[in-house]
């Protein structure tokens, strides 16, 4: 008779672990990735692969160098690489994609302590880093599967930065418009977002608050339903609201906090879109709200049940 294990309760655990959650996020991103490759061509696929490999390799080497337990099996590096790739334009040189992905993992994530410890979203911060560093980033790519004569993204047209005609609403829904690899297909992103909600990986509070705020503000600004719909489907709003503003490490934990975070993101996005010098503001909005997260969390913490103030 061997000895019995004595350990602290509980003695059963829910099935899902960190790896399972990350796998769910990857599955949820697949429709957008596939849509991106179909719309923007094979180059999009190479960028996705480059980013993912670069991210995983960076984390592997970093953990080796600093002698930490290797964390690549939790798949979070894959998620970061994939998210970054989907936020890049398909004409970005592969070496730049690799550098950006390495920056996301090493500088933004690992140097702050690795998974769960970073205060800023790695994919977003890396994207902004690339926007500032590489001029190629500013040039949007356009669909290769249709005869596209467009030379500007819907947002730059809507904001008057560029001239041209807006794609149809159906094209917007399917993603047949200029933009980043994974951000154009609203339909694919909604399918992915719905999957995350059904699997309870994310709460509805963030995307509803974020998209809802942009919707309301745009409607007030334009006073027109169609123009508002363009605002909702254009730029990086969908991918941002479902996949980046719901990042665990960099957003508030409580449901109320998530609502506040989402509304804040929506307001900043609209400020930048309507009056800023950039046509798009989702990335900056999320990054700014990331910085406010500790304060939001502190202010929105739920009162302990039955707790009495000392």
């Amino acid at each position, binding site marked *: 008779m061997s000895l*019995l294990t004595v350990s602290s309760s509980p003695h059963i655990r829910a099935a899902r*672990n*960190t790896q399972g959650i990350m796998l769910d996020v990857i599955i949820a991103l697949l429709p957008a990735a596939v849509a991106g490759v179909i719309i923007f061509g094979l180059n999009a696929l190479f960028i996705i692969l480059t980013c993912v490999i670069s991210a995983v390799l960076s984390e592997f080497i970093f953990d080796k160098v600093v002698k930490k337990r290797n964390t690549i099996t939790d798949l979070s590096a894959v998620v970061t690489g994939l998210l970054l790739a989907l936020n890049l334009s398909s004409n970005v040189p592969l070496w730049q994609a690799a550098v950006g992905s390495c920056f996301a993992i090493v500088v933004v994530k690992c140097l702050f302590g690795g998974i769960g410890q970073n205060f800023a979203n790695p994919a977003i911060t890396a994207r902004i880093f690339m926007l500032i560093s590489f001029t190629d980033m500013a040039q949007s790519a356009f669909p290769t599967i249709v005869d596209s004569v467009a030379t500007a993204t819907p947002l730059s047209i809507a904001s008057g930065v560029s001239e041209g005609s807006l794609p149809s609403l159906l094209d917007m829904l399917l993603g047949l418009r200029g933009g980043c690899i994974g951000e154009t297909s609203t339909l694919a992103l909604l399918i992915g977002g719905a999957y995350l909600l059904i699997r309870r990986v994310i709460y509805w509070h963030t995307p509803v608050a974020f998209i809802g705020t942009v919707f309301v503000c745009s409607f007030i600004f334009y006073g027109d339903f169609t123009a508002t719909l363009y605002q909702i489907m254009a730029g990086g709003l969908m991918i941002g609201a479902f996949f980046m503003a719901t990042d665990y490490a960099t957003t508030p*934990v409580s449901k109320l906090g998530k609502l506040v975070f989402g509304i804040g993101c929506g307001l900043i996005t609209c400020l930048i879109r309507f009056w800023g010098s950039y046509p798009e503001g989702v990335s900056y909005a999320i990054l700014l709200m990331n910085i406010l997260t500790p304060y939001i969390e502190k202010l929105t913490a739920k009162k302990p049940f039955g707790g009495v103030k000392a």
Partner: protein
Amino acid sequence: MPLFSLPGVHVPHRKNTSDMAAVKEFMPKSVLIPTAMHIGKPASVCVKPNQEVKVGELIAAADGFVSSNIYSSVSGKVKKIDSVLLSNGSYVPGVLIESDRLMTPYEGITPPEITDYKSFIDALSKSGIVGLGGAGFPTQVKLSVKDLSLIEEIIINGAECEPYITSDTRTMIDDADKIKDGIELLKKYLLAKKVTIGIENNKPQAIKKMVETFKDDTAVNVKALPSLYPQGGEKVLIYNITGKVVPEGKLPIDVGVIVINCTTVAAIADFVKTGMPLVSKCVTVDGSAVKEPKNVIAPIGSSISELIEFAGGFKEEPGKVLYGGPMMGIAVPSLDSPVLKNTNAIIALNKKDSVTPEPTECIRCGMCVNNCPFNLQPVKIAAAYNNKDGAELKDLKVNLCMECGCCSYVCPARRPLVQTNRLGKGYLREFLAMEAKKAQEEKA
């Protein structure tokens, strides 16, 4: 009824034994009865080695009011007064009795004379009955109320929210008449005007039986509750049934409620009718290592190994054996450990189910926070404990944690959050004692 029920987690039910009425034929060769099976002071042994004892004979007397009498659960001979290792790590005296397998009842047993509230409580203090849901709080203490008019509602806890356990379910089905008698006693002597029986909705048979039993009694309501763990937690049950919040440091009676487990109610009725004190307990024997899961009426003090042998023995080598369910149950160090008064289940898990998962880094998913029934923040409590930050632990109200285990259960990084909550509670107590001492010194 509150607008929203408290958060919780969906745990697997695994109520494999809910159709199995308790088997009464189990007769252990010997019993080892510890003197501490309740909250409060251990009882003091009043028998000597080689003394003959019978079923229901006093072997250890309550030491003070918050304590409990302990009676022999078999007839036979006291072998020795032994030292028993309790699950909290301390040793207490225990009485080892060799059974003569006759189960002769003690001659001195007569139904207690009860005329009013005071004599009811006096009788209970000689019943050996403690909270049988698991807490083990002496029942006479729980039912002692300064002013009976404070009691607005009595809640009978039949939630039984832990996986595997069905002993309360079987009591409600098989001993419905006893629960009825018990509730009559509570109505008569505690002047309870309203009684609510709360049962999780995964026990339709028990709900049906209770509804049938009380269909003519307008003062008794049966309430089916969602199967959301920890539905049977006292404060959770009170909130989900009445909408009342028991404030920090207060008791249910402070909001006009008394919660009592359904098996405890049946035990009270049994004792008042026959005078036989608490000597046996319905125990669910189940788990992945047990061959024939069943409900067994086990004499208190029976060894776990004999009880499992009675349930067909092990089908696989056990890795972990629990008092109670897998969410809050306590792992026993040895199969020689005895069945206690408040043992409602013995769960034996196979080697595979006994592996403690390796924790990985926290990913700040917030599941521990969003699934805590009491809105606590286990992730922050763990950080505060690791930083030995007493003031922060106080602010985070770690003292409210009931250790239900939801946070650890859902944590995808497998972090031992209940454990850090417990350590945090202990550290906070030390911290507050230090602060009080400091304040006193400054005054002096």
